[in-house]
């Protein structure tokens, strides 16, 4: 049985917990509930006939004075950077986290999710903001479910691809 760890990283209040709740339990709660420490959930997938268990590490949102615990990210196979489209500065937080991950624990497959796509018309984040990074960006809505499955599926296949590349290198 294949098991992969995915971390959800980003500022507080961007919807990391809601994305997991939508993905794993098909639920959404409007009320904001901050995450204490880390909350671990799992989801079993079938990828091309193979069972894959995703361990989803929903980590407390980064805030001033409480940066993301990078030691929990170390053994992750990939991560989702989450930002809130209605709050422009959460995109900066996501970028800064990505830089720290990259420089301190190295490169991992990741995606940038811009959440709250149901409020698209009030977004502060613009298309030009997103285009500049060259990253894979997915607009999601934990509320409506838009692109949530796709986001996790895309990251999973990236991780599996990365694993395959690694083992080829090993040969």
């Amino acid at each position: 049985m294949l098991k992969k760890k995915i971390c959800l990283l980003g500022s507080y209040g961007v919807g990391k917990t809601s994305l997991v709740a939508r993905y794993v339990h098909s639920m959404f709660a409007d009320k904001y509930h901050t995450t204490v420490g880390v909350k671990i959930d799992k989801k079993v997938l079938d990828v091309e006939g193979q069972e894959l268990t995703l361990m989803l590490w929903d980590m407390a949102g980064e805030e001033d004075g409480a940066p993301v615990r990078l030691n929990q990210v170390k053994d992750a196979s990939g991560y989702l950077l989450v930002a809130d489209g209605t709050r422009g500065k959460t995109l900066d937080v996501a970028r800064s986290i990505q830089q720290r991950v990259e420089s301190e624990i190295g490169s991992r497959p990741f995606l940038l999710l811009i959440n709250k796509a149901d409020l698209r018309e009030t977004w502060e984040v613009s298309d030009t903001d997103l285009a500049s990074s060259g990253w894979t960006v997915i607009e999601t809505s934990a509320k409506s479910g838009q692109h949530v499955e796709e986001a996790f599926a895309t990251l999973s296949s990236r991780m599996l691809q990365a694993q395959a590349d690694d083992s080829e290198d090993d040969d």
Partner: protein
Amino acid sequence: MTPKTTTDDLFAPLGLAVFERLPTGLFQAVGHLPAWLPVKEDSVDLAGHFPILEIFLPECEALWQAGGPAPMQSDVWTEPDHAGGEIYLQAVAAAAGGRHFIALRSLPAALFTYQQLAHDFELEKEKVERLSHELEAKRREAERATQAKSDFLATMSHEIRTPLNAIIGMADVLSSTSLTGEQKKCVDIFQRNGVALLNLINDILDLSRVESGHVELEATDLDLREVVARAMEVVEVRATAKGLSLRQTIAPDVPRYLIGDPNRLRQIIINLLGNSIKFTDHGGLEVKVEPDPENTGPGRLRFAITDTGIGIPEDKLGLIFESFSQADSSTTRRYGGTGLGLTISKQLVELMDGRIWVESQVGVGSTFFFTARFQVQQDQSERTAQDTPQTTHASLAELEARAAGLRILLVDDSEDNRILILSYLKKTRSTIDIAEDGQRAVEFFRTGHYDVVLMDVEMPVMDGYQATREIRRIEKESGAPPTPVLALTAHAFAEMKVKGYEAGFTDLLTKPIRQTTLLEALAKHGSSGGSGSSEAERPVVAPASIRIRVEEGMEDVVPGYLAKRRAEVAVYRERLGAGDFDAIRKLAHKMKGTGGGYGFPKLTELGAALEKGAIQSDTSAIRENLDEFALYLESVKLEYLS
């Protein structure tokens, strides 16, 4: 005897679940496991249950191998509890007596309440900031829209008033000529509807100005009795035409001399009276002024305009002061009007710190009330007629006489308006030079002498403000006293007035300009002799009549010929204003060829002089000859043999 308590039994009440590490790598519960722990077996794979310990336990092993003494603790994590809520856990590692322990402890939720509150607060704060940004943007947008509306109205006002000026003015001119009964009727309709349209435009502009806060009330001396009387005068004709009586009662304890805005007060009374007349077919109207019974205080007055009209149904009483509403939309068709007058009145009354309301009974009549606050003048002693400005209207002929013989520079880019002004001034025997734009006006002003300048404001090349500033500069340089500059503008906005006076306008006439208004202004400003040269240096020319004998057989054509030449004077001046020397040359050439033939060798001579002037583009020569031409035409008296 109390039962023996082991330390193990204390762990659960303390909120601790303690495990000892077995050599197998599994963990053995020590004492009773607490109910909150989602682990029930005695021997467990802790990291399997709590994946976060996959990171923590290897670190513990390393510490234990090294024989480190200090306890260490894991990061906090969240687990679901069996009631559908959450618990917050932390692992602590310790070594004692060569044995290794992991304790899991449940942290009270209250420890994290601050975190929830801080995030809630931050998110709300951001939301408020976003909303206030949006609000600010909307406010700016609204401001821009208001500005655009204001600009639009200013432009529209100008664009509409300019042609209206020509229409009403020309109708006035036309009505003063001899007309058949049928024609007179048509001209009356022109006049009436032109004025109605103008009033409507004024109302719309007025309302938008009041609404956008552009109207500031004046605080000048006012004579209440006179304001009421003047308002009654305005509506008198309409009331009389409908056979309605008009009465006014001013309570004896109402102070007569107040400080306030007489024009706006009069406007309110006229609006209310006009409205009452519209809806009253029998009986009469009364204006009553008394101290405000509900709000006593010096200068607090209550006005009541009572009619015996159709009345207003009770459910419509509140509506009638709203824009574009009459009690019944069918009344618009029957009685006309837009109902804007009442809305404007309401706004003005509110500016006067008062309120307006109506009491009415269908079929009996209505009373419109409004209150207003004024300051009371100290001196309430009766003024003699000399104290108050002359308000009686001089007749047209008197005005023409008073404005006679002026040298006027007319500056206007609209040919229609030039012709209109010229026809207004036809009988004043004024000498009029015409400039089509501000720049030509300044050129004229440098070389000519004028008693008064009539200056349009909006013109191509150089506008009226700039031209007036130039004129003031020229006067300053030469030390000449200021020539009255009367601005002609279709813009009725207060800010235009300020700008105009700053530029040096002496007075401002708002288009459409009525003939009497223009003549009054000329009589007032022109005769004061601003240039100093008008009365003193210039000989008063009282043209002696020049008798011309009409040759036999020419009786039918000579008067017509002469009339055409008289009409041409204005055309020459107009073309000269436009710098169109070619047109002048053509006209003059024709006159040179015909004058003698009709028995006017002087006209041939003047035609030749004008033609020469035109060929040489000599403005001042043309002007001199034109003056002579005009004077000659005025003096000519035809004599017939028979």
